């Protein structure tokens, strides 16, 4: 039973790697930049799952800490990117309005 569990965990890691490959295709093809951000967000979620599965497979709990830090990093990345786009857009619109008044 123990051997079967180990091989099942390894197989699920391989399946998730294949799914990451497909997400990467979407990130390259995506027509708009939000498509790429969505695909990247999904890739980071799958990597978190892979890290937690590996921590159970190798019986080393410290890999879960790595997964937590990775989750925080991916969250910060998406938030900073979207805030930057929204704020830049708002400034751009205000400048256009001031140009229209003149």
């Amino acid at each position, binding site marked *: 039973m123990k051997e079967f569990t180990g091989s099942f965990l390894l197989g699920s890691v391989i399946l998730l790697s294949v799914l990451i490959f497909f997400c990467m295709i979407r990130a390259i093809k995506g027509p*708009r930049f*939000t498509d790429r951000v969505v695909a990247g967000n999904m890739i980071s979620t799958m990597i978190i*799952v892979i890290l937690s599965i590996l921590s159970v497979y190798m019986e080393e709990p410290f890999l879960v800490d790595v997964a937590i830090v990775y989750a925080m990093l991916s969250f910060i990345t998406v938030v900073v990117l*979207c805030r930057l786009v929204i704020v830049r857009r708002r400034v751009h619109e205000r400048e256009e309005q001031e140009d229209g008044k003149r």
Partner: protein
Amino acid sequence: MENVRIVAGIILIAVGLFVYITATFGLFRFHYVLNRMHAAALGDTLGILFVLLGLMILVGFNFHTLRLGLIICFLWLASPVSSHLLAKAEFVTFKHIKSECEVVEK
């Protein structure tokens, strides 16, 4: 009793992997970003719940389990916030959004 625990964990992990396959399929099936975001959020919440719940059952009860639960808590708090910001960025930058979905003017 030991075998029942292992089988339950394996079934939960298999359900989670199925959810991930569905989410990746939806990423290619839909034709617009806001619809694709729906499929991606499925993997973010339901997929990680099932896979990590299965892993928690496989490990047993110790500090390793609590840390895996911490990942679920953090992702459930973080994923809606990032999805909301992404949708807002899409709404602000895309000019032909009224042809893709209904927009309520305030």
